């Protein structure tokens, strides 16, 4: 098996002809850790994504506060996968496709996991976070908003998927 792509190095080289100032990626020495408080079969799970997932019926969305960079929005958790799509251009279009939302937004698999009893339940709402060039914007404005929405819905475990 070949090694994973070193994206930080690859992206730095890719954009070097355009910018003299390479992007400084967020980096922390330590990481927080919270053990599960109860079995998954009794836990309420939320799905959070940066995939710009969008419902074809926009009435199912709320609170879209997309800014020039960043922002948080919410989408009903029970929108079927065939009613979802993403407009994002930020994926490897030469190697894969966004036709099947299950490959980046596992709502169907999560609903199946509820039906089989593997997890207790899902929150009523799932959340999206738009990417921001500014880490400060993400940290100071978007993260507290995501936490607030998770707490409003009683989320006990979070599944996160980037694109």
């Amino acid at each position, binding site marked *: *098996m070949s090694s*994973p*792509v*070193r*994206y*930080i190095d*690859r992206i730095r*080289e*890719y954009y070097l002809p355009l910018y003299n100032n390479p992007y400084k*990626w*967020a*980096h*922390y*020495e*330590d*990481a*927080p*850790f*919270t*053990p*599960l408080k109860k079995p*998954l079969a009794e836990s309420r799970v939320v799905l*959070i994504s940066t995939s710009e997932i969008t419902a074809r019926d926009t009435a199912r969305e709320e609170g879209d506060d997309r800014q020039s*960079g960043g922002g948080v929005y919410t989408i009903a958790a029970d929108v079927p996968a065939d009613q979802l799509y993403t407009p994002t*251009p*930020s*994926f*490897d279009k*030469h*190697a*894969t496709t966004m*036709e*099947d939302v*299950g*490959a*980046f*937004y*596992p709502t*169907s*698999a999560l609903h199946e*996991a509820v039906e089989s009893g593997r*997890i207790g339940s899902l929150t009523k709402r799932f959340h999206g*976070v738009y990417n*921001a*060039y*500014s*880490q400060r*914007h*993400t*940290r100071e404005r*978007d*993260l*507290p908003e*995501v936490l607030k929405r998770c707490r409003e819905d009683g989320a006990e*475990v*979070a*599944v*996160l*998927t*980037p694109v």
Partner: protein
Amino acid sequence: MCHQTVSLVARYLEANGIPTVVFGAARDIVEHVGVPRFVHSDFPLGSPCGEPHNAAQQREILEIGFKLLERAFVPRTTVQTPFKWSGGDAWKDLIFTQAQPFLDAEDEKAWLERKEHYRKLKAEGKR
């Protein structure tokens, strides 16, 4: 940028008492930020939860995340899923290279415009 944003969300939720698991493709970015639990599939950007139209594999990858939630006992625990991209590994040599631009001209223009807008806001002290 997506992997960084998701990693920052994971850290913040975890620090505030909500256990998290990140499913991702860009291993170096997620591990550079540092998250509690990470399920890495060595797949192209856009398919962090399994190959498109392979629901069985997607379910297996989700289950690996569930097990990681149950069994990880320290932060920065990464699990590598056992799957290989069915189309081969050629994409790894081409992603983010001048030979194969990541965004087409229109996407690149829109991205640069958003970036310029952000710079102006920052210069005006609004960010």
